[in-house]
């Protein structure tokens, strides 16, 4: 066989630098989650020592301490971990499926659907506040189905551009309705605002179990589609001739992202930044697209876990919305990373 030109074929060399970056990144994220979980159990309104917390798991702690750790702090921390995972993976899926680096559950209209449903419950039907997570999840799903339906054409499927445009339009309409409801029920603005900026205050095992099945389903679909999604980034035509069922892959990826983002929003409210920025942050650190999905899942968990920890300890005993923390710290840090990597120079 000839080759394209006449010189000898050089050997293919792996990139040890990139492999080291991956190992370092995964190690840092894993350590950060472990440390965050431990800190979440120790820190809070009631001061506990590390020994108190360890005593809970060895059966030596007082009942009050056990209840604080097992019924309040642990499920709350796990909710933050799972929601962070969900939002970051949803971001990876949507950025891949739309081939748009700005895509996240907020741009596509999924969180706006959850937001409107939650606003209806909080502002119009406050007696049904217990239904808030379920309503928010249903709102997210209805919005997602509507966006996909609007962007779908017979024979052509749902194009990335139409999905984004439909999402922006749905965001605008639902945002207007939320504004209208807030204006009409002005006395309930604080509750709505607190929910729409995201919080894990009072989240327990019930919320975790509510989120878990959708998270497992969404993650399983994401992992199954991971390879096809990477091929899809080459464009629809190339992906199709390389063996990808383009329309089906896009539909399933969109459904998985909706399940993940919808379930996260139903428990955490509308937490911005994580779905959009964590995947980019992971790409910048790793320098490759190859492991973005699994690493983003863990990075999203770490980011939201530490953000929640800060949200409930910075102004303790008062609590900040977790979305405020993710935006205030994550945004500037992301700009720093962009600058360091040369994207802003």
């Amino acid at each position, binding site marked *: 066989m000839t*080759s*394209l030109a006449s010189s000898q074929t050089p050997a293919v060399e792996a990139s040890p630098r990139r492999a080291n970056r991956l190992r370092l990144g995964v190690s840092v994220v894993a350590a950060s989650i472990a440390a965050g979980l431990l800190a979440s159990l120790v820190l809070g309104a009631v001061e506990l020592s590390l020994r108190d917390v360890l005593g809970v798991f060895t059966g030596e702690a007082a009942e009050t301490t056990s209840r604080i750790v097992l019924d309040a702090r642990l499920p709350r921390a796990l909710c933050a971990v799972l929601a962070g995972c969900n939002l970051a993976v949803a971001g990876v899926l949507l950025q891949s499926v739309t081939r748009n680096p700005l895509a996240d559950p907020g741009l596509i209209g999924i969180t706006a659907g959850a937001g409107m449903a939650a606003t209806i419950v909080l502002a119009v039907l406050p007696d049904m506040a217990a239904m808030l997570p379920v309503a928010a999840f249903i709102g997210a799903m209805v919005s997602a189905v509507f966006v996909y339906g609007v962007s779908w054409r017979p024979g052509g499927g749902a194009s990335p551009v139409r999905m984004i445009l439909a999402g922006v339009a749905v965001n605008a309409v639902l945002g207007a309705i939320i504004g209208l409801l807030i204006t009409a029920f002005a006395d309930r603005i604080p509750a709505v605002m607190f929910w729409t900026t995201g919080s894990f205050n009072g989240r327990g095992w019930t919320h975790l179990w509510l989120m878990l099945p959708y998270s497992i389903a969404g993650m399983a679909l994401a992992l199954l589609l991971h390879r096809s999604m990477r091929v899809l980034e080459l464009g629809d035509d190339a992906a199709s001739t390389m063996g990808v069922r383009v329309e089906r892959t896009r539909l399933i990826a969109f459904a998985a992202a909706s399940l993940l983002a919808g379930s996260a929003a139903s428990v955490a409210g509308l937490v911005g930044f994580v779905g959009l920025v964590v995947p980019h942050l992971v790409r910048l650190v790793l320098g490759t697209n190859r492991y973005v999905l699994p690493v983003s899942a863990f990075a999203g968990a770490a980011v939201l876990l530490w953000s929640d920890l800060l949200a409930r300890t910075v102004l303790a005993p008062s609590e900040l919305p977790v979305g405020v923390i993710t935006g205030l710290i994550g945004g500037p840090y992301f700009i720093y990373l962009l600058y360091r990597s040369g994207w802003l120079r």
Partner: protein
Amino acid sequence: MTLIADTLRVRLGQAEILHGIDLEITAGQRVAIVGPNGSGKSTLVRTLAGLLAPASGTAAIDGTAVRSMRPRARAARLGLLAQSAEAPGLTTVEEHVGLGRHSKRSYLSRWTPSDTKAVREAMGTCEVGHLSSRRMENLSGGERQRVRLATLLAQDPEYLLLDEPLTGLDIEHQLGLLHLLNDLNSDRGRTIVCVLHDLDLALRFFNRIVVIHEGRVAADGAPRDVLCPQIFERVFRVNGRVGCEAGGDPVIMCRRCEPGNQQRSEPPLVEVRVQSDHTPSLARSSS
């Protein structure tokens, strides 16, 4: 094994681009598809690849319509190097070529040594092995084109459909690619269907030429038979013929028809050829 277009009509929007194309490409052939701009060459290749649904007629491989085949099965039979494709960011050359193995792997299968071997072979063949760690966005247009070809080779389909593959390549790599296609055809039995604009290269490197004009097959056959003065004049609107250069190699000689003077008997001819087989740096098979 045969790839067939049977009375193929294809519409893009309201416009009918192909008006009933009949074509039969048997395994092992090396076919150049040529024609003026907008004649329907790319539409034909994209339809053969299963990307476009015919308005009527069929594109089929061994009697099975390509649109009805499962994508992975189709990818094992037909591969397409499209005119352009998106290069995903933060993807290295080796990762890009590795994507070509997608159809060979099931959803849950792991990357195997044979995948690595196929990727390295494809990169070596296309002279991009030394770029393996480079990111796609940092490559030149020609380098990207070679990486895309390597990705197609890693896919390893029986039929290679190439839509203007020489775009962006310098003359050495143009000739190198055409020799490579020849070798894939003669050594590995791959069937080559290649859209080209350069009639001289089509004449030299392919054993069958299909001329598409206004969505129909205007001529189909051996290169010297197809590239006759009538086809030059009717399809390409130039005065041309196949001549011979000093070494005996065929060469196309042509000049532009002057409006209203297309029947002039002896127009002065301009030679438009490439020094293919005499380029000192040209790659040659060791065999």
